[in-house]
């Protein structure tokens, strides 16, 4: 009895391991098959886009699918730096849209772009305050008022770098209560009422217009971020990728971006 039972358990273990290995193999071949599905009808375009593009690109993706029946746009939104790192580690993406040229340079520098990136949008900073502006914030200088809680992005992320540029240019010295890891984090602190103001992109403030008022300030046009877009070298669907980039830069695409609050070149 005993040896037999032992053999049974061993068989079970081997079967489980094989099943796991098989599943892993299947996963790979399935994603590989989907990714190499090629252009034309049913082609999937995988777009890695900066978090601040969430609303605009979701809309553009849907429009693109309607304009080209059978095509599917898969969107992955995250911080530009994280996306750049994923692409350089071999993530199977077709298009990369970054919120800063610095992060795009990481990808082009590693030789992972197909051709030169194109600037397709610009974003500028505004002061986001709770709806109705209860503390009467009129500009950057007001942010240094004692007792006013301000959230900024950390200097490591694009919106934080832009905020620092704007504050330095206006000679405003302030101590924020928090340096958020991305622009949505800073905005969330305003929406939750935990801070009185935050420096965020105009597009983010616009997307949260139900809870947030955007205060524009002189010099905000100087604190801009350029958004480059590029087709990736290892794009599983290069034709679809080029079509999507062209769509973003078309009249239609520019209209959607402008409606979201971007400046379109």
């Amino acid at each position, binding site marked *: 009895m005993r040896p037999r039972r032992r053999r049974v358990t061993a068989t079970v*273990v081997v079967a489980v391991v094989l099943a796991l290995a098989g599943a892993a193999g299947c996963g790979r071949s399935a994603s590989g098959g989907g990714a190499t599905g090629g252009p034309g009808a049913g082609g999937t375009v995988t777009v890695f886009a900066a978090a601040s593009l969430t609303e605009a690109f979701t809309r553009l993706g849907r429009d693109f699918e309607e304009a080209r029946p059978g095509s599917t746009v898969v969107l992955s939104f995250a911080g530009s*730096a994280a996306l750049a*790192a994923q692409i350089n580690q071999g993530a199977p993406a077709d298009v990369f849209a970054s919120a800063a040229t610095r992060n795009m340079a990481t990808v082009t520098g590693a030789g992972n772009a197909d051709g030169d990136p194109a600037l397709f949008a610009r974003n500028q900073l505004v002061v986001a305050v709770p709806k109705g502006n209860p503390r009467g914030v009129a500009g950057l200088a007001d942010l240094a008022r004692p007792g006013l809680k301000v959230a900024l992005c*950390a200097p490591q992320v694009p919106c934080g770098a832009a905020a620092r540029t704007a504050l330095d240019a206006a000679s405003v010295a302030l101590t924020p209560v*928090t*340096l*958020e890891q991305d622009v949505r984090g800073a905005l969330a602190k305003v929406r*939750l009422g*935990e801070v009185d103001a935050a420096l965020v992109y105009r597009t983010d403030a616009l997307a949260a217009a139900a809870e947030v008022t955007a205060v524009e300030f002189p010099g905000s046009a100087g604190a801009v971020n350029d958004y480059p877009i590029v087709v990736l070298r290892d794009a599983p669907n290069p034709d679809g990728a080029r079509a999507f980039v062209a769509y973003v830069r078309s009249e239609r695409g520019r209209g959607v971006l402008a409606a979201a609050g971007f400046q379109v070149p």
Partner: protein
Amino acid sequence: MPLALLLPAGLGLVLLVLPLVGLLARTPWATLPQRLAAPGVLTALRLSLLTATLATLLCLLLGVPLAWLLARVEFPGRRLVRALVTVPLVLPPVVGGVALLLVFGRRGLLGGWLDATFGITLPFTTAGVVLAEAFVAMPFLVIAVEGALRGADRRYEEAAATLGAGRWTTFVRVTLPLVAPGLAAGAVLCWARALGEFGATITFAGNYPGRTQTMPLAVYLALETDVQAAVVLSLVLLTVSVAILAGLRDRWITSP
């Protein structure tokens, strides 16, 4: 030794250790000293150790009585309470952070009152970090101690009672020493979880160097610009925590 156990055990170990190997393989050893001396590293490490320790003390103070209640007192709804205690385990930490804001934030259920009555504001403070860490780490302590209490032989407590010891004396002099290994294991788990806490901390307490920026937050932000700096910070956190855990383990947990 059955192969059926050895094989998955080996695979499990590989799964746990391989990422560590990756970290070590990518560590920029040549520039390590400069990177360790970079401003902010020590500050973040000190803050991490301080807040994790304070959070553990808070968990001990509140969690041990809670574990005792769950293990030793029959009351209606005990199952529900036990399930509620484990909520922070299944809750994504970021959600935990939002929930804490909704209670202790400026517009929170208690936050406004705390501020108006005692002048206490928790978000964006070091105390807020401790609270966030205690929130996510306490279940580890409660579960470990409750398990130990259930496994403890109650005859010792009964004997103490028949010899004239009061309930409090019995608890402190008999029950606690009986469950000491479970208590130590729970405290260590709790401390380790608090040390690695990220989501609830950044959501509830924000990120400001020296005040609320703990090591995991510093690592995350370093990743945005400099992967090698992030690797070094991770290595520091790992080394310090493993050293402390190994030291504690030898002293308290494995000794009979």
